[in-house]
């Protein structure tokens, strides 16, 4: 059972959001359209705060994350849902409860939706395969594999500023190897036909065989952002390093940190994005982060709407008709 079938029910409705690699273009466009309605706050058939009334949503986070969890929580509450935060203490996992057992227990509590973040790649798919009830799953990040809601909100943000996707050059900079955000972004951008996707990373942080994804690979920042329309800076994930990938943060900053000066290589109307939280003055200087090029805060704003759209689309699909 591949993820492509796993995400949809037998009527072809989107039941779960696990990955953007296997999402159909139809569903992706519908989610983006629905996002627009939530952003504009008009043309909605029902009152927003009633859309998920009486639905129970559980945030099941096996990894610390205030930002994503809060974003989902705010989105869910705006839709009128009940939200429970189930923070799995690492130590209780050590007490022996398997992930499969945790899921079974939660299913027995009759929730409508589980939003899961887990440190193992493939965890969201694994969880979905355990399900015995009708509960829906949103993957809020599984290891280094995918973070579909982030990919969608980044795609939405880009399309908002640069509607002609097939004349666009998007450069993603940073620790691509360990980035679930980058993977989801690449799938989303490819699906909607963004014409050129570039990756910039030191060789030690570039996944092997990545050219097969139809992307251009650079280890030099200025070359990678030459004439770019969109630059996405990724956070240097210090805590994910297993071993020594870089000699020092200082050297990384010098080679890959985005400054106003380096930004001159990109297009004049370039937009700078970042999934957050930013390491100020490491991968991105304060001047850039606080400049008009940066739409980082707008990403957060759209993030809430995208998450509302995802949840509404999964639980109340008729809303998008």
């Amino acid at each position, binding site marked *: 059972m591949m993820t492509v079938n796993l995400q949809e029910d037998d009527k072809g409705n989107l039941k779960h959001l696990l990955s953007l690699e296997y999402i159909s273009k139809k569903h992706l466009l519908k989610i983006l359209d629905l996002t627009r309605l939530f952003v504009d706050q008009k043309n909605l058939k029902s009152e927003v705060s009633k859309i998920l009334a009486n639905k129970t949503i559980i945030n099941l986070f096996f990894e610390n994350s205030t930002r994503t969890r809060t974003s989902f929580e705010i989105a869910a509450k705006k839709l009128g849902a009940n939200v429970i935060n189930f923070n799995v203490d690492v130590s209780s996992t050590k007490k022996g409860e398997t992930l499969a057992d945790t899921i079974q227990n939660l299913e027995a509590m009759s929730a409508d939706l589980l939003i899961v973040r887990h440190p*193992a790649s*493939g965890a969201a798919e694994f969880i979905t395969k355990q399900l015995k009830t009708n509960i829906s799953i949103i993957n809020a990040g599984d*290891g*280094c594999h995918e973070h579909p809601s982030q990919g969608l909100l980044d795609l939405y943000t880009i399309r908002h500023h640069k509607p002609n996707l097939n004349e666009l050059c998007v450069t993603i900079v940073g620790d691509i190897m360990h980035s679930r955000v980058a*993977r989801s972004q690449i799938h989303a951008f490819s699906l909607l036909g963004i014409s050129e996707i570039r990756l910039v990373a030191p060789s030690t942080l570039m*996944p*092997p065989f990545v050219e*097969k994804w139809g992307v251009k690979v650079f280890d030099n920042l200025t070359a990678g952002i030459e004439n770019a329309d969109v630059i996405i800076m990724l956070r240097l994930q210090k805590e994910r390093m297993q071993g020594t990938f870089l000699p020092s943060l200082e050297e990384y900053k010098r080679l890959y940190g985005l400054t106003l000066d380096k930004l001159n290589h990109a297009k004049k109307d370039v937009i700078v994005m970042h999934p957050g939280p930013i390491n100020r003055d490491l991968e991105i200087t304060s001047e850039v982060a606080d400049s008009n090029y940066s739409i980082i805060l707008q990403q957060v704003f759209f993030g809430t709407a995208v998450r509302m759209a995802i949840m509404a689309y999964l639980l109340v699909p008729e809303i998008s008709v």
Partner: protein
Amino acid sequence: MKILITGGRIIDPCQKLDVKADLYIADGKIVSITSPDDFHPDHTINAKNLIVSPGLIDLSATVFNPLLGSESIEKELGCAVKSGITTLAWMPVNSHTSPAMLISMVTKAKSKSPINIVPIAPLTVNMEGKQLNELNSLKEEISCGIVTNGVYPIMDTALKRRCYQYANMLGFKVFIFPQDPWLTKGFLHEGEVSSRLGLLGIPSCSETLGAYQELELIADTGIAAHFCRLSSSKTVEILQNAKPTFPTITADVAAYQLYLNEIDVSTFNANFNVLPPLRSESDRRGLLAGIDSKLISAVCSYHIPQPSIAKNSPFSETEAGISALETLLPLVLDLSKDDQSLIHALSLITHKPATILGSHAGKLTSGSPADICIFDPNYSYTFKKENSCSSGKNTPFYNWDLRGRVEYTLIDGKTVYQRSRN
């Protein structure tokens, strides 16, 4: 006790024999394929339309998995016999491997199962790679002649060298899993799939670096060596090039490695979690080429049964291993396209692995032990979980269409398995 196996097609790869003939057995030994004088069989087996082959020799099976408990040992050995295996090399596990415990388990298993067990000694204590194991007691008590540290790398090269020196002194052969200890920390082959899935991969150079190092240690210590479970086509090349300098080195591959590749892992299905990992399609073809060139002379099951809990987690949190006894014969049979290649295919699981193990089994020459596998090479079936006899249901081959079914297994002339016909 005189046994006659009649009407079958006898294939004995050791003698390059492929002939329709009867097989005569007396007192647990092969007598001949021509009728001896005055032979009145006590028992006759009708092998019409069946192949009569030496009993299969499996170079590597984990029959004791602590997660399954020692009660499962008998079940696994029974499953092996049912799969046509008459000699099985018992792979140690990295716990419960104190020599005393291993001796006790193997001795008990031998008393309960007729299968010929060749116990492999763990090279270091608990295979942790920190301390030499008491190899002599294993040699004396259960006739161990083969030693391994399994997939657990020995970090300290100086210690590893001393282990080989010591094992060599006692006449052991080492079963080597070539790998670099630092590059081996991943969960699957480092390649397109690992990059896509966002999982740490094990690069091919882990195995090739390991192979180069092992060759040097073999030359330095003089130990007899066999390379296990090749996974990379590059390792095949390295060993091929090393042949002139190392003419006695042998190599094997797990049967499943010839059929699966990294793309199978892209579903995150934990039944494809194996070590060494399933590599690229070109690696798979390289392994098949290694069999054709005879660099790889044996195929084993590399059976590792796991309880469902060991596989029921996200991929990187599961235990490696495939439950593989039941698919050994069908997967090897499928390698052959004609009669010529059938003899070669059967050699991979009969006299070649027997030679590697230092066993006299695996052949049907006069005087050999009457260890025989009689099978229907044309019987096709869908391999179903409910028909599976191992304690471990961790195999990706369920619902595969397989060909080749064991009808009888004989050990020392005694029918230890006969397929029930109801």
